[in-house]
């Protein structure tokens, strides 16, 4: 209650007028800043809500930034990986065993293409996004793959793939070129025995339709097969041996009993003679075919396996080497154990964690997506191994043996690269990253919705309603005007003015 004005002034009246004008000032500030208050205190009870909303908004903005960053990286990775898949098919297609056309460089066009594509693939694996190598696990400051030349020829005292391959071929072939198998005949029994070594051909199975011939094995350790001839078999009956090659492929050597003339390597043996003679004939044919096989298919297998051992270094492992002199070596072990410094083509981080988990992004509350990658993931290393191996050997257009070598090698590479034969193909990585991308997109869509909701809520708490404040100002203005008017009129009504 404010008393009637008496005399010149009233402090109480002044206070009321002053309050009105400071309220006016406050409203004007509100209107010009769009904020309900200049301090948190002014928000009153809503302060907790305002702070909570702001922190949620900030968190979501953080998620969005993460998603943006990750998606940029993902799109670059996608491009690289798509090209890598393409490269695989290209090499697989051009490694055609039926066409033995060797250029002046002693290589087929397919081989030369393969070398170029290996270089391209290395470039792709060294893809950078914003200065970070995306295929380098957690060491994104390091270009993960070394150059083609270093990989092939070695560098700084470390052996390259050529040396590794060469040793492997020698180790698998053995000094006699029989794939580390011993073939001998004593009286009427021919025996084929594996050497106790990690290298060379291994006995897988034997199938026998020869009558009067007892085949035992493969049995024992090292495994051996004994072919015991008790009497002459019938014409046309067959004996075939199945071998496991170093790269896991199999080769079959068969021979048919015949009464006619036989030539070494024609797949026949003479059934004429004593059991001792027949056993010796079997041995001769087997040894001939074996040597021929080792020189072509065996070499192809060794090349592929050597490249695999060289490239497949995921999970922190290093290239595998032949320990000791290749021809007599018995074990394959890491370069360190073997004492043969070998170049490790992948120099990025190489831990045992899942490659995908080397980069994670939190895209929502409690939702993380992995999108990391390493260049030496098995699928990519395998592809590189086939491709580089294919690019190495040289051939002589005029050599029959070289044609056999090329044909078997090209077929093996082509088969190995076609995705049907790969357990873990590059496409799988693409799919995994695609899923990650989808999850991120979904989350981003959600964030956009949530964000606009939160911002609206935050505006409601902190912001003002322009119309409402304007209306308040209008009301207040007329209040102030009329009260000033009234006050001034009241003061006019002083007797002072009338005497």
């Amino acid at each position, binding site marked *: *209650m*404010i*008393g*009637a004005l*008496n*005399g*010149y*002034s*009233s*402090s*109480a009246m002044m*206070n*009321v007028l002053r309050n009105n004008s400071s309220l006016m000032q406050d409203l004007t500030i509100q209107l010009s800043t769009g*904020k309900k*208050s*200049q*301090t*948190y*205190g*002014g*928000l*009153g*009870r809503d*302060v*907790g809500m305002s*702070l*909570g909303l*702001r*922190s949620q*908004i*900030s*968190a979501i*903005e*953080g998620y969005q*930034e*993460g998603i943006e*960053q*990750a998606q940029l990286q993902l799109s670059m990775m996608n491009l690289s990986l798509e090209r890598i898949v393409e490269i695989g098919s290209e090499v697989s297609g051009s490694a055609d065993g039926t066409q033995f056309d060797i250029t002046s460089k002693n290589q087929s066009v397919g081989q030369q293409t393969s070398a170029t594509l290996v270089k391209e693939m290395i470039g792709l694996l060294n893809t950078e996004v914003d200065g*970070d190598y995306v295929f*380098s*696990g*957690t*060491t*994104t*400051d*390091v270009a993960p793959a070394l150059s083609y030349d270093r990989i092939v020829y070695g560098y700084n005292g470390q052996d390259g793939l050529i040396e590794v391959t060469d040793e492997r071929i020698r180790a698998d072939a053995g000094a006699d070129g029989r794939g580390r198998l011993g073939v001998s005949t004593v009286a009427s029994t021919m025996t084929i025995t594996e050497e106790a070594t990690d290298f060379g051909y291994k006995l897988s199975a034997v199938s026998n339709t020869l009558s009067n011939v007892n085949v035992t094995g493969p049995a024992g350790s090292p495994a051996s097969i004994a072919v015991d001839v008790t009497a002459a078999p019938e014409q046309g009956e067959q004996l075939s041996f199945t071998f496991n090659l170093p790269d896991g492929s199999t080769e079959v050597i068969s021979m048919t009993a015949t009464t006619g003339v036989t030539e070494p390597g024609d797949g026949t043996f003479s059934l004429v003679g004593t059991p001792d003679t027949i056993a010796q004939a079997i041995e001769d044919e087997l040894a001939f075919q074996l040597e021929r096989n080792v020189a072509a298919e065996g070499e192809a297998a060794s090349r592929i396996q050597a490249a695999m051992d060289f490239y497949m270094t995921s999970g922190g492992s290093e290239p595998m080497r032949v320990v000791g002199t290749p021809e007599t070596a018995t074990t394959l072990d890491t370069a360190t154990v073997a004492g043969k410094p070998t170049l490790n083509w992948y120099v*990025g*981080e190489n831990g045992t964690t899942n490659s995908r988990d*080397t*980069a*994670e*992004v*939190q895209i929502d509350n409690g939702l993380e997506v992995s999108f*990391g990658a390493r260049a030496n993931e098995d699928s990519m290393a395998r592809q590189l191994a086939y491709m580089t191996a294919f690019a190495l050997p040289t051939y002589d257009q005029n050599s029959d043996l070289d044609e056999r070598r090329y044909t078997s090698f090209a077929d093996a590479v082509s088969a190995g690269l076609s995705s049907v034969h790969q357990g873990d193909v590059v496409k799988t990585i693409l799919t995994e990253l695609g899923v990650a991308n989808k999850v991120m997109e979904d989350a981003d869509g959600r964030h956009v919705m949530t964000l606009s909701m939160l911002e609206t809520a*935050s505006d409601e708490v*902190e912001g003002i309603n322009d119309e409402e404040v304007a209306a308040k100002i209008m009301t207040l203005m007329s209040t102030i005007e009329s009260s000033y008017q009234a006050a001034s009129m009241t003061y006019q009504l*002083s*007797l*002072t003015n009338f*005497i």
Partner: protein
Amino acid sequence: MALSRALSIATSGLKATNRDMEVVSSNIANANTVGYTKKTTSREDMVLNGQVTAVLQTSVQRSIDLVAQKQYWTETGATSYSGTINDYLSQVDAMFGQPGDENALDSLVNEFSKSLQALKTSPDDASTRLQVLNDASVVTNAINKAANTIQDLRQDAEFAIEEAVSNMNEILDNIEKIDLQIQEVTLTSGQNPAGLMDQRDAYITQLSELVPIRVEQVDNNSVQISTTGGLTLYDVEAANLSFTAYGSVSAHTSWSNDSATSQLGSIYLQSTSGQLYDVTTSDGFRGSKIGALLELRDDILVEAQNQLDSLADGLADAFGKFDVAGTAATAGAQNGFDVDLADLQAGDEFTLTYQDVATGETNVVTFVRVDEAASLPLSDDVTSRNDDTVVGIDFSSGMANVVTQVQAALGAAFTVSNPSGSSLQILDDGAANTVTIDSLDAKATATGLQQTASALPFFVDGGAGPGIYSGSVDGVSQQVGFASRISVNANLLNDPTLLVQYDSSVGIADQTRPTALYDAFATNKLSFSFQDGGAPVSMTVDDYARQLISYQAEQAATAETRNEGQEIVMNNVLSRLEQSASVDVDEELARLLELQTAYSANARVMTAVKSMLDALLTV
């Protein structure tokens, strides 16, 4: 003779009218003077031998509603109390910034959280790493600044109390001087020295702003003034109060009623014999400016500082502390745990949880490392949790001594030993089965940047020589005032890759440490003490930062609302007082007309007497 009597009566009438005119003109002139009360006069006729001989002006009276005046004084105190609190708290509120502004403390905290999140996504990006450190520095700066603001406000309050006390003394001296004159005038003239009383009341109004007062009217228009708490301020003689302000207010300085240890000023009442009585503690100052200042200095602002310290402590702990898990150990039928105490720093804790088999109760004993025996024993307040028993363990004399201390604290039901190195083993009593040990874990402070993957001394104590913050309780608790010293580890600023590479062999895109940092800030809950003696709250560091802002903002909002309410009350009281005491110019002018008429009437009488006398003389 009748004519001469008429003349003298008329003269006295003129004189009285003159006197009235004086009062009226004084009223009009002082209509706007603060504290001026309307004066009224009264007359009486002088009767001599049954005949009127003159008109007399008896005295000038003040027109005032004494009840309203008392209420006015009370509300003046209350208003200055709420106004002072509001002034200070609005500054505390303002230091957190404008809602939504990018420099508001919560925005800074959010930014830091966001950049930690970005670091988690791209640890290999140099600018992201730098951003984390920049944002952290900005947050620590904001906390430092807030803590400094709070201490500046406490310092302000300290000086303001000094000023208020010295004002109070001056006012009391003036009151004494004037009141003595009032008594003298009243005694000698029997009149009311209205002007003096106005002046005295104006001083009392000033006094009522500073202290809550009670005013008693006593004989001879004198007054007695005491505080509402009963402390006499003026009774014939003015009390003398003293206050010496300390110029170095910081988080470490606190008031104590023991003058030897108090680091802040106390208000003393000086008796006539020169004896000083500490009156700071008395509730006598509540509800006035001085009361508000004391409350701010010793209570409200201290709480705000504690909350900031708690936030700084939380930040340092979240990033710097790591768990050392106990490993189960047995010896015969006895079961228990081993825990390695090697990494514990002063202030770090290891906690034993066991069950009392007889009662089924779970007990928690928190052992806190101290490095000086003088720091023992520790109070239970050292940890924020309320359900534990705190035992300080002096590590300065080696493990054997630690074992002895732990054994002594736990009693015979436990077997404490040091199996090897710095490992501590606590076993239960086996077959007797009176206790079962649930767990024995330690929390250690990382001192090296590459000591463990999950923790690093991200925030350090930038006080006297940058140091590791471990929450040491040796001497003065390290947490006190930490808010003004917390800073980002300079070694980290020199090499931001340490935010990622917790070991030299770790790749630059490794997310282990960034994830741990983000979780430490935004996911892992810590225990914070919020209000003095209140239950601890369990929340993440960034939540706590928001909670703190919210709490302080609400305090400020409450203070403002209270102040607004108080101002309305004040206005009402003021209006009531004004109605009784202020000058109505219209009324005065009307009176002026009346006096004019009276004056000319009296003059007319004199002219009439003169002409009658003339007529007589010409006869």
